[in-house]
Each structure stands twice: as C-alpha cells, then as structure tokens.
C-alpha cells in the first residue's frame, strides 16, 4: 500500500509511530520517517495510524488496483 505523509501538517504527535511501528518511526523527538510502501500485512495498523493522526496528515492509497496507474494506452 502506497502512502504519503504531509509533513507540513505533521506536528510530531507520533500517534502513527505508537500504533504502527512497522510503518512509522520517529527520528529524534519530532521528525517522522515512514515507509512509503507499507506491507499488506500492516493494513489494519496503517488504518489505525491514519485515523489517529491529530492533524490528518496521512494519505493512504484510495485506489485498490494500483495497476490503473500507468496503463500506457494512446
């Protein structure tokens, strides 16, 4: 699952890093490091993390079939 965090919004509340430590980690006190591509096994935790973000900065892929992405028809 692709994800991105809007780090302009992020204020380092670390809820995501508490709830889904496989995907999100704090780097120092306030900086967030995350895996831009989360393992399918962490889908539920990722949903927990995204919902818990106090500034709603986490965007998880809304497209189920990423193949839609780049079908290169002309």
């Amino acid at each position, binding site marked *: 699952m692709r994800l991105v965090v809007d780090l302009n919004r992020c204020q380092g509340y670390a809820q995501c890093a508490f709830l889904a430590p496989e995907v999100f980690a704090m780097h120092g006190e306030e900086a967030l490091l995350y895996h831009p591509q989360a393992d399918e096994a962490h889908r539920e935790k990722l949903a927990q993390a995204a919902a818990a973000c106090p500034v709603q900065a986490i965007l998880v892929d809304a*497209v189920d079939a990423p193949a839609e992405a780049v079908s290169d028809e002309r």
Partner: protein
Amino acid sequence: MSGDGSLEWLRREGRIVVVGASLAGLRAAETLREKGFAGSLTMIGDEPYEPYDRPPLSKQVLLGVATADGTALPRRRALDATWRLGVAATGLDMAAGRVRLADGDEVPYDRLLIATGVRARPWPRPEEAELDGVFVLRTRDDSTALARRLAEGPKRVFVIGAGFTGSEIASACRERGLAVTVAERAAAPLVGALGGVVGAVAAELQREHGVDLRCGVMVTALEGDAAGRVRAAHLSDGATIETDVVVVSLGATRNTEWLAGSGLGAGPRGIACDAGCRAFDIRGIVTDDIYVAGDVARSPHPLFGYQFLSLEHWGNAVSQAEIAAHNMLSESADRIPHMWVPAFWSSQFGVNIKSVGVPSMGTEIVVAQGSLTDRRFVGVYGYQGRVIGAVAFDHARWLPFYQELIETTAPFPPPFPMVDRRPDGQRPMDADFPDPSVPTHGPTVTLSGYSPADRRMTFTPAH
C-alpha cells in the same frame, strides 16, 4: 472559448493535458476528476515512472529503510487518464493548442497545465560530472544509484553544497557510519534559506555528528583516476579531499527550455503566472487556457508585497495544483487565488526543521522560544517591522501561531511575553543572509520578481 456553454462543454468532453507527471501534475489531475471533469485527460512525463514522492529520496532511501522504486505516490482517486511516460515534451504551439513530444507526437489540448518542475543543477564541468562516482540527487534513478553506491561502503562521501538536500545527504551518510566531507561556499549550511544565525546551529549539528564540514570554500576541480572513477576533490583553499563518491547538491534549474520560442513567459526563473495560476505570455498578457503549478511556477503573493515567488516546496505543489485545476474548470468570478503561505520541512541529524513564511526576506531574527544552544527553538524573522517568517527546530507545534502572525502582518519583534522566551530572546539580531547578488543554492524560496526599488532593470521601448 467563453461563456457558460463552452465551460460546460469543456467539463463534459474537453481535452486537458498535464505536462509533468509528478506531485503537482498528479494532484491537479485528481482534482480535475474530483470536480467533475469528464473529458480526456493526458499525463505527460519525461521519466518512465508513475508519479512518485521525492522527499524520501534523500532520507528514507539513503538510510536504506525504503527503496527508490517504492516511493510511488498514493492516489486520492482513480484518474482514468492516458499516460505518456518516458516521453518529454519538447515544444508548445500556443496558437494551435498542441504540445510536441520527444517522439514526434503532438497532443492537442483545450486546457494545458504545465508542472514540469525543476531538475538538479549538474556539476558545471561536463567531463568531471561524468566521472564514475559523481552524482546528483533529484530523481528516482538518481536516488537508486546513490543508495546503491552508499550501500557498497565508500571510504568517503563528498557533498558539494550544504543546502537542505546536501545536509540531508550528509546526515543519512553519517547515520550509516560513512565518512562525509561537506563543502559549502557560504559561511554555514542552510544560510540561503535560514540565514547565518540559524546556519551556525546547523553547522554545529553537522560537526557534532562527525561531518567534516568546510565552509567558505569552493570546489575547484574533481579529479578522476585512469579508469574514469572520481578519486579526489580540490578546494579553493588548497585542500584536497580523497573521495570515491561525490554528490553535487547545488540546487535546481527550472525545466522551461522546452518552451523556448513558444511565446509563453518562461525562462530560467520559471514560468510567470497570475495569482490564479494562469500563465503569462511574453508580452505580459495572461493566457486563459494555459495554467502553471508547482516548482516551475512563479506567481505574485499578496502577503509578500505581490512579489513573484518561486517555491520549491512540496505543499506549494499540492496547493497550487488544486487551485489551478479548480480555476481551469471555473468561470472567472469563481476562480480562487493561490495564497498558500510558504512552508517546508527538513529532517537532518535527528532534528525536525520546519519553516513558515519567507525567512529569506527577513533582515532580523529573534529567538522567541527555546534556545539556539539546546537546538530546540523558534526563530522569528522580521522585515520592516513585521513578522515575515519563522523557523522551528523540534518545536513544530508552535508554528501555527507564528503562521497567524505572518498572515496578519503582526509587528516584529513580537512584543508580548511567551512561555520559554529566554532573556536573550528579547532583542533581534541581524538574520545574516548572504548578499542576494551572490548565487546560492537551496534558498527554497526565490524572489523572482522585481521590486520598484530594484533599479537593475532598464526600460527600452520597442519600435
């Protein structure tokens, strides 16, 4: 192309072409669909990849916690677009409404969005730039190649330029235990963006983490061995640094060359557009079918004296893309201006650096909260008696307050007491920005317009 009828037609069956398939292009396309655009959508990108996120390329990827091919951006929705990836746009015919592609194709449009962004400025001497082991970092391929080389455990990494990207690269290398030398022309890292007072803190941070930081020097030459591999860098102070990986981190160049001769107001400073993201032509007349968004745009900002700003900021790309998309599908009265307050972040050496406003317009700085020595603080920048920008080191939660001060053009220095305002945080200091006439890299905000006080321009009437 005016009146309700044609707009209805555009929404239903018009052709919108987006040149630039990165963050701004993607978010604009999603917004178009969200707002009910049902016509044909074509996404053109010179890289062969679907839109990906760049900030991780200098952080997670270099640290080895993610791979560059795993940075594709999540989608807000399905796009139903035709993707022309790996094919650069090479020209624009404004009269005919067509974009020319590198493979000879021409793509017609009713509305065009240009979001071609910037590219890394290469090392100026091509024969040295081509040495094996010399890198730049902007694209997914750049990052893959550099990460692979770092994983091989080079003896020393040499970073040219201590802007944000250069500093982040140095930070990642140190975290991986690699020896790093950073050479910076200015007196300290990050001075272009944040000035010398904060730059001094950044310098300490680097040295404390074991970076061999050399400021006030220029790199005079890169030297290769017989096999064409880089082996050393020579500095203006006479020093020679033995190195096997060189990362050239000298800022970015705007991707506007493909528009040369098109009649659009595009040049090395970017593409000028109005506050509604509509591009100007070279005569200074605003177009009504060509829009610009992201790093390649330069647009006037009401908070900053309507100066034209070029912002190499992630949040600006998203915001401007959304507004350009909205305006494309709107009657003139329904259009909205792009008034995003500049904001960016960087994380390096375990510190979260965030900024709002335009620090580089500031002439003075006051440490309003915390202390520089602790490296936890908010620095507030002042310009002509008002608050113009702020930077936080591990103090992000306070920034919304300072953004409000910027938005309301509050007086500088802030006259009121605040929690954790220290005695030395009462009086402003010279923010110590380098002379703007000396080229720097990494200011992340470029004032690319001309203020009335600027007398370098001469007006030559045409005949």
